[in-house]
């Protein structure tokens, strides 16, 4: 199985996993929907939960022991006391499948590949809705500038394999595939040595973006349509390692391995969650006036030096900014040749300015995985992916607006109908009232007439009894 297009990058040498001195201050981001369980001034221990376990939101833990200095905007800052006093925990033995899920939640596990989707949520939604066919373990790096997973496999294969087995138990999947790129020779050897027979190792071509989960799934199984369509799950290999640590060692997710790329080398550093980027800069002796990209050279985004390591920071790239000016598209089609999704990026680009939603959807803009292969090959230096992300946002905005408008229209129509029925009701009421009134009028008239008649009658009676009276004599 081969993907269409893509880019083959040269594999570069990288360093073993190392550590830097623990940070003196950490800034830990907490999920916006979680309840913060600590307050400013509290002392916390390393590994102590910072948020309540009750909500389904991802939990956060203190990655150092020390004092909480501030809580704002879902960021908790902790001043370290330098002791790293651990929060007491006791590893359980003999764990059942549903307990793995609970432990994943309690220890704040998220996917470490870059998307940071909560592990517990992924496991529970999969087991609730359907049976999981295939559990795919992503051991292919998602970006040519990231080596953290490869280093992890080379150095801690036993723990990873234990984690994979735990994930397999928890997901209840019928089979399990580990997908890895062919250029990771040492990692492949380690996995071959440690993986049990029921877990299949599939070696895929080292062509970016084969590390994208749906692409990898197609490469490993030959099935198209993506993971969800095929009722399958995907975990990053580093996530499996954290599952092992959470379940067997009762250790929350306090650190992760980050590939740090500078102008002259590639290192893999195990960093505490919340470590400020400035600490990394200081330790690596890199010059500060470089751009910092987080998340790889292809799909990464620029961050400032104030950024702190969070659970999804898989890499930090320090490089000098190069400014290439974009020129007009010459429709050469190099972008279409590398697009893994068989799209026509230059045609998509043509329809982003001026924005043409229907043409873009005809050209399947939503199938774009934003891998940025087209940006790399474009001779006109056009940042195509940025345009596509922008266009997707515009379409999303339009959709929201349209939905709003439809809702408003619906509301308006309902209101009109309500008013109509109300006025109808009122009119009926009025009618009834007037009917009544008319009726009552009639009755009164009747009464009056009856009275008048009775009066006349009595008068006539009077007349006949009293004989002739001058006043009462009928006219003649």
């Amino acid at each position: 199985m081969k993907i269409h297009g893509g880019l083959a990058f040269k594999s570069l040498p990288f360093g073993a996993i190392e550590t830097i001195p623990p940070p003196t201050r950490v800034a830990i981001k907490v999920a916006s929907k979680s309840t913060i369980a600590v307050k400013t001034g509290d002392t916390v221990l390393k590994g102590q939960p910072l948020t309540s376990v009750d909500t389904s939101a991802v939990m956060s833990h203190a990655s150092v022991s020390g004092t909480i200095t501030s809580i704002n905007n879902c960021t908790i800052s902790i001043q370290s006391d330098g002791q790293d006093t651990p929060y007491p925990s006791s590893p359980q033995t003999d764990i059942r499948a549903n307990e793995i899920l609970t432990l994943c939640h309690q220890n704040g596990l998220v996917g470490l590949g870059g998307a940071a989707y909560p592990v517990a949520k992924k496991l529970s939604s999969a087991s609730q809705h359907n049976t999981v066919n295939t559990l795919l373990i992503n051991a292919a790096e998602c970006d040519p500038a990231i080596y953290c997973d490869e280093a992890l496999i080379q150095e801690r294969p036993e723990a990873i394999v234990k984690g994979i087995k735990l994930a397999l138990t928890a997901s209840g999947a019928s089979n399990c595939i580990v997908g890895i790129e062919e250029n990771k020779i040492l990692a492949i050897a380690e996995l071959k040595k440690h993986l049990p027979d029921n877990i299949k190792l599939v070696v895929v071509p080292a062509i970016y973006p084969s590390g994208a989960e749906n692409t990898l799934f197609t490469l490993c199984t030959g099935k198209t349509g993506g993971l969800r369509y095929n009722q399958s799950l995907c975990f990053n290999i580093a996530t499996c390692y954290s599952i092992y640590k959470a379940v067997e060692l009762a250790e929350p997710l306090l650190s992760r391995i980050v590939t740090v790329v500078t102008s002259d080398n590639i290192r893999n550093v195990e960093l505490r969650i919340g470590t400020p980027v400035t600490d990394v800069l200081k330790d690596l002796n890199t010059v500060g006036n470089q751009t910092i990209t987080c998340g790889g050279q292809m799909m990464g985004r620029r961050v400032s030096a104030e950024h702190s390591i969070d659970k999804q920071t898989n890499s930090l790239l320090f490089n000098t900014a190069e400014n290439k000016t974009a020129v007009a598209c010459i429709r050469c089609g190099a972008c279409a040749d590398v697009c893994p999704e068989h799209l026509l990026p230059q045609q998509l680009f043509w329809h982003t300015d001026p924005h043409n939603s229907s043409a873009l959807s005809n050209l399947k803009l939503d199938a774009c995985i934003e891998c940025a292969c087209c940006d790399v090959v474009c001779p006109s230096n056009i940042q195509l992916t940025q345009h596509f992300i922008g266009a997707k946002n515009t379409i999303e905005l339009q959709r929201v607006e349209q939905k709003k408008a439809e809702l408003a229209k619906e509301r308006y129509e309902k209101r009109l109908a309500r008013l109509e029925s109300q006025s109808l009701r009122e009119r009926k009421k009025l009618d009834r009232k007037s009917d009544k009134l008319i009726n009552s009028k009639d009755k009164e008239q009747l009464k009056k007439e009856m009275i008048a008649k009775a009066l006349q009658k009595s008068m006539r009676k009077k007349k006949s009894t009293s004989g002739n009276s001058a006043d009462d004599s009928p006219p003649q």
Partner: protein
Amino acid sequence: MKFETNTIGPTSVTTTMQMVLLALLPGCLIFIYQNGWGSIINLVLAVLAAITFEALAVTLRKRSISSTLADYSAIVTAVFIAICLPPLLPWWIPILATGFAILLAKHAFGGIGYNLFNPAMVGYAMILISFPTELSLWLIQPDGFSHSLTESLHIVFNGGLSVIPQWDALTGATALDQHRDLLLQNSAPIEIASQTKGLFGARHSEWINLGYLIGGLWLLKKRVINWHIPVSFLATLAVCTLLHNLMAGNTLSPGLNLFGGATMLCAFFISTDPVSAATSNRGRLIYAALTGFLVYLIRSYGAYPDGVAFAVLLANCATPAIDRLDSWLSSHER
């Protein structure tokens, strides 16, 4: 650390154009060898005119002159025009063709990337229609350098070859011209073949075509162009010629058609112009097949001996329709 990939083609528009110019070199040198000083004068005039007109247009459109000229696209257009022209034309014809190409076909449509038609072919077709006599006068080949530079300059700046009294003695028809004349005279196929055939293609111009073929293969290898357009174009032309020969007796041999006139130039350089070609690779297969079919039709039944320029322009007209057809096809296949 730099993460590099070695699977990609040229990294900028400028590199693309420079590589195209480099790939033109073998064919171009043979062309100059066969046509002498006159073609060099054409080349110089066209390139100078292209740079001037490009600068003028860019100034009028209020863009940066240096960055626009630096993409070499105007020079490529000028070279394409010059290598289609016969030598010793009056000086203003190459300039007129280039001006028309740059100003009208390119910048009036929005500059590089926006032109609907191949600018070089627009310029060439315009003068081909306007000055058919001048454009049919080719010197006797391959003895192009029999006229000295001063003599050539004198002819060029004094009205061209056609105003010289003894021009008839100096000129000789190209293979495709001759083929067409002989056909009109109902000559025997063997005679036609003996008069027009070279070693493997058309007499004389087979070598130019071979030069362009070599350059084109280099462009393919360097991933400046994809295989779809040349292969589809040449295959269609060859198949049409073969079928024609089977049905109507031998008139135009495949060798004459493939290695004659501007066939290889069209296959690898003209119809591969990405701006005016179809978008997707499938679209490009259709586009090039259409071009090849039109070249065959014009050469076999049309009024012009070669017809590459008109075939390319007609196919350019069909490009938007081909793109629509292609997107319709791809929306129905999955």
